[in-house]
């Protein structure tokens, strides 16, 4: 059983930055879509693992905030 982990940081203005681990490929973005609200995503930083087909640890960071 693999563990999926998302770390969300909500800053003082309500903007969110998120970091995912344990997702395969771009499923991390889908998982974040399910959790984060309609706030505009301002940047996505993909790590080396993002393009792996199946990975045990994927470390991707998404920053979301007011547009």
């Amino acid at each position: 059983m693999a563990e999926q982990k998302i770390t969300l940081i909500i800053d003082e203005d309500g903007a969110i930055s998120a970091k995912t681990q344990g997702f395969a490929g771009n499923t991390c973005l889908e998982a974040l879509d399910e959790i984060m609200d309609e706030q505009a995503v301002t940047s996505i930083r993909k790590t080396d693992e993002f393009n792996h087909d199946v990975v045990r640890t994927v470390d991707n960071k998404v920053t979301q905030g007011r547009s």
Partner: protein
Amino acid sequence: MSVVVKTLTPFTECNVLIEALASLNVSTTVNGNNIITDRHDYQGQQCFVWNGSAYLFQYDSDELRGRVINNAIHRQYTPTRQFLSQLELAYKAAYQQHLTRLEEAEKQRLEQERLARVEAVRVNAIAKAKAQGYRVKEQKKNGKIQLVLTRTV
């Protein structure tokens, strides 16, 4: 005979004007759009009349009776020209305080909005995470909220 005097500073704010008058120990009564003072002259109580954009001071040009009446109630009568000069300074000071209060109220409103926005984001994120089967751990770090969401698949 009555006269209308215009000052350099327009008295546009009722509360500020009342505050300025109070600082000069002038009691007031608001009557409709007019501010009645406890200063007396030949015509009775002197007042500020709202003309649609500012308060204009109305008083009688014969101030002798005012002196007599005010002296009768053990209060020194300040001549109108001197009174308006003092009032103008007091009004400016009160207006600055008024602006400071508005600024403070605006700051508080923005802060309340910010707190509400952060709370809404937090509550929403937790609710959605739980709906997606995540366990949620919450921590506060340097004024920021950290949510660690984990699930096994």
